C-alpha cells in the first residue's frame, strides 16, 4: 500500500468516525481485516488488546500499531496524521461555527440519540467477529488454551461487575493466561523428549 493510499485510508476512517472510538474501531476492522486483508481478525483482536496498555486514545494506539504493520515508522506517521489532522481541523471549524451560532442545537437530539445504539451495535459486532477466531485459534492449540481463554473472558466480566479497575483486570487476565501458557509448554516438553 503506497503512502498516499495509506494517508487516504486513514483520512477516510477519521472523517467517517462519527460517534466516537467504537465507530473508528469498526471502520478500521472493515478496512484492514475485511477489505485489505492486511491482518486477520485474531491478530486484530490481539493488537486491540495491546493498544489498551498505552495511555491516551486507544483507537489512535491501534492506528499506530496498524500503521507500523503496514509501513514501519512511515506508516505510524501516516496513520497519526491521517486519522487526527483532518478530523481535528473539522472539529475546530465546528467549534468556531458553534461559538458563532446561537448554540441552539436541540434539533441534534434525535440524530445523536440514534447514533448511540448504532455505534454500540457496530462495536458489539466487531467484538463478536474478533472473539470467534481467537477462540478457534485457542481450541486448535490445546484444550488448556481454550479453557484459559474462556476463563479469562468470563473472569474479566465478573471482575468488572465487581468494580475492579479496568487496568488491573486486563493485566490480571493477560498475566494469568501467560502463566498458564508457560506452564503448559514446560510440562509438554519433557513428554515430547521422552
Amino acid at each position: 500500500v503506497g503512502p498516499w493510499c495509506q494517508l487516504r485510508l486513514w483520512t477516510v476512517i477519521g472523517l467517517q468516525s462519527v460517534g466516537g472510538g467504537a465507530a473508528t474501531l469498526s471502520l478500521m476492522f472493515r478496512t484492514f481485516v475485511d477489505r485489505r486483508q492486511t491482518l486477520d481478525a485474531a491478530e486484530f483482536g490481539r493488537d486491540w488488546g495491546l493498544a489498551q496498555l498505552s495511555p491516551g486514545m486507544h483507537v489512535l494506539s491501534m492506528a499506530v500499531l496498524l500503521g507500523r504493520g503496514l509501513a514501519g515508522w512511515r506508516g505510524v506517521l501516516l496513520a497519526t496524521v491521517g486519522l487526527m489532522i483532518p478530523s481535528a481541523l473539522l472539529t475546530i471549524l465546528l467549534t468556531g461555527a458553534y461559538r458563532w451560532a446561537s448554540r441552539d442545537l436541540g434539533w441534534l437530539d434525535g440524530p445523536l440519540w440514534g447514533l448511540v445504539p448504532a455505534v454500540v451495535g457496530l462495536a458489539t459486532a466487531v467484538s463478536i467477529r474478533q472473539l470467534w477466531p481467537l477462540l478457534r485459534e485457542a481450541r486448535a492449540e490445546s484444550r488448556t488454551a481454550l479453557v484459559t481463554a474462556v476463563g479469562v473472558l468470563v473472569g474479566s466480566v465478573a471482575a468488572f461487575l465487581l468494580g475492579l479497575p479496568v487496568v488491573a483486570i486486563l493485566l490480571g487476565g493477560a498475566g494469568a493466561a501467560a502463566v498458564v501458557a508457560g506452564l503448559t509448554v514446560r510440562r509438554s516438553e519433557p513428554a515430547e523428549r521422552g
Partner: protein
Amino acid sequence: VELELFGILLRSCLLTWTGYGNLPLLRDDFTARGWGTDAQVTDALLIGQVAPGPTGLWVVSFGYLTFGWVGGVLALIASALPPLLVLLAARVRDRLAAWPATGGFLRGLAMATTGVGTVILPLLLVDASHRAGAAATFGLAAVCCLLGLHPRVPPWAILLGGATLGGVLWPRLA
C-alpha cells in the same frame, strides 16, 4: 503560558486512559487557573460527539474554545503523543514473540478486553434508553449489530441510518 498549557494538556493525556479519561484532570487544571469554565467543558464534549474522529478530539475543541488556534493545535499535539507509547509495548512483544507465555499474554489481554467491552457496551445504552425508551434503544442497537456482522454493509451506512432514524423517531419517543 503556551508552555504551561502544553504541559498541562500533555500530562492529562499521558496519565489517563481512553478519550474521556483526561476530563477530570483538565477540568480541574483549567478552572483552577481561570483559563476555562464548566460551560466550555460541556460545549467541547458536545462538539466532540458531533465532530468526526476519535472521541479524544473533544480536547482540541476545548483547547480552541479557551486559547483559540494555539490552544487547538497544542491540544492536538498533546493528545497525539501518548498513544505512540504503544510502540514500546509492540517492541517488547516482538522481542519476546518466541516465548509461549507471550502468546498466552496477548490472547489473555484480547479476551479480557473483549470481556470488559461486553459489559461496557450495553451500559453505554442506559442513558440513551432513559431518554427514548429501552425497547427502541436496545432494538436499534441489536439491528445495527446484526448489520455490522455482515461484512458488505458499510459502517457509514449503519451510522447514517441510526442518526436518520433517530431524527425521525425522536419526536415520538422523547
